[in-house]
């Protein structure tokens, strides 16, 4: 099947797995929005009582949390379609390539989160106005984060044979990436000597880059190259490439 037809397949999968359920069940948007918004609400309450201004960090954290949790959605959707519905097999035995299937599914996950992302961006422009350049960088960070998370989600989904095994793994992996690292809070909240360790989670690169782009100050980080926007960008890009390649070579499109 030609490249043009693969792109058509990507569009159709995005449409029927993302846009169609969103159109039919708009309440699903609330499910995507609710968890990061709850964190934001806590930060708002804590900020009001402690006189600290964590709220803009929380909004940026909400944006990145939403982008990262497309990976959890991808993991659960792909595992469900493969194990429970046997529908991934229907696409394997077809001209639709694994690339088209994965990208179509990943875009459908992004489609689900677009309303929530738009809402968080709207809140950000109210509480912490940003320049068009910063907006562009933020969108770039979101796209890299989405790509990293969804390829990781797909990879994990193909390695297990039972849905019950997959559910806790998704929560574990994506909570570790989205909740623990300094996304909702500034990295300066962590003791200086331990800040480098947060970069073991690749989402920290995204958080630091996004904070820098929108002009939210962060503390110093050592060793020296860490904390530089270029290193953050390189780290995020490398992690994205790593998970994309891992998905391309290790994911089981055809079972061994």
């Amino acid at each position, binding site marked *: 099947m030609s490249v043009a037809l693969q792109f058509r397949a990507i569009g159709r*999968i995005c449409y029927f797995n993302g846009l169609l359920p969103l159109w039919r069940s708009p309440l699903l948007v609330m499910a995507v929005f609710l968890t990061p918004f709850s964190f934001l609400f806590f930060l708002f309450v804590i900020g009001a009582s402690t006189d600290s201004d964590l709220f803009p960090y929380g909004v940026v954290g909400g944006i990145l949390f939403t982008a990262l949790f497309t990976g959890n959605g991808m993991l659960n959707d792909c595992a469900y379609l493969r194990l429970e519905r046997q529908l991934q097999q229907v696409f394997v035995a*077809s001209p*639709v390539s694994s690339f088209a299937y994965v990208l179509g599914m990943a875009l459908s996950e992004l489609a689900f989160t677009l309303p929530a992302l738009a809402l968080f961006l709207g809140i950000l422009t109210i509480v912490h106005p940003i320049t068009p350049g910063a907006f562009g960088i933020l969108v770039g960070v979101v796209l890299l984060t989405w790509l990293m998370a969804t390829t990781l989600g797909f990879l994990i989904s193909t390695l297990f044979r039972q849905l019950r095994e997959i559910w806790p793994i998704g929560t574990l992996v994506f909570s570790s990436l989205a909740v623990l690292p300094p996304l909702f809070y500034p990295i300066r909240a962590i003791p200086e000597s331990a800040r480098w360790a947060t970069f073991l989670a690749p989402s920290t690169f995204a958080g630091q880059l996004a904070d820098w782009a929108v002009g939210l100050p962060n503390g110093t980080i050592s060793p020296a190259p860490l904390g530089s926007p270029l290193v953050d960008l390189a780290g995020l890009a490398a992690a994205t490439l790593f998970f994309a390649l891992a998905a391309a070579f290790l994911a089981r499109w055809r079972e061994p």
Partner: protein
Amino acid sequence: MDALVAEHLTKVYRGRTAAVPALDGVDLAIPTGRLFGLLGRNGAGKTTFIKIAATLLVPTAGRIELFGHDVVAEPRAVRPLIALVPQEGRPFYHMTPREHIVEYLRARGESGSVARGRAAEIIGAMGLTGFAEEPSYRLSGGQQQRTLVAMILATEAPFLFLDEPTLGMDPFARRQVWEVIRRVTAKGSTVLLTTHYLDEAEQLTEDLAVVEAGHVLYRGSPENLKARVGREVRLQFSAGVTAAELAPFGRVLTDRGRSVVLTQRGAVRELTQLALERGAEVTVGPVTLEEAFLELVGRGIEEEETA
């Protein structure tokens, strides 16, 4: 020309404690345009064979070609030529039957007008009209299965793998599906069908293979398989006639508590006389594929146990 050729196809699954052989040197050729049945008990290796042929699973050893392409080495050449109804598959919960057919065909590269045209045609042919616009979570299990089968048959792919396609369908729905399967075969598709409904295999297939424990036990027509039983008719008795009394006349089976004997036409008069004397009801009919299958696989199991 053969559409599918398998040579010494072997698959061994890694179990927790030991290797589990699923296919053990299967040789099989399926001619182009044929509606071919693959029969066997649960765990005999049918689904494993289909998964390998449909590029879902890599064999442990052996070779398999589809339309001249090596299935293992050239999956990208094979995949545009095939479509699969997986065993116990289910459609997307939020999509209607029509959307399933149109969207799947479009994802496979068909134009919108072709996809809509084929959807309209198959929806009518498979009796989906009454619920074609209902999301599948509102459909019964049989209706969902029909949706999935319609989606795959509408592809009119050169090679169709149907792994127990009528599972859970009522007799009317099964017959509608049979008719569409015959139609796509007449249009030129080759079909590999597995089923546990042996009446379905008898109705649909002109050629079949029986697998047992990863081996091909039989390859040929349903008629020849029935002929191998060596008996011409089956007589089923209500209570009153014992298996011991029937044994001299042929092979005796039990079907839902009733005695059945497979025998020659010449014994029918004597056996009906026996039933009359006992006040028992007797039903006379041809030997079915199910009996031939039970006989063949039963013998296969016995031979394996003896070995």
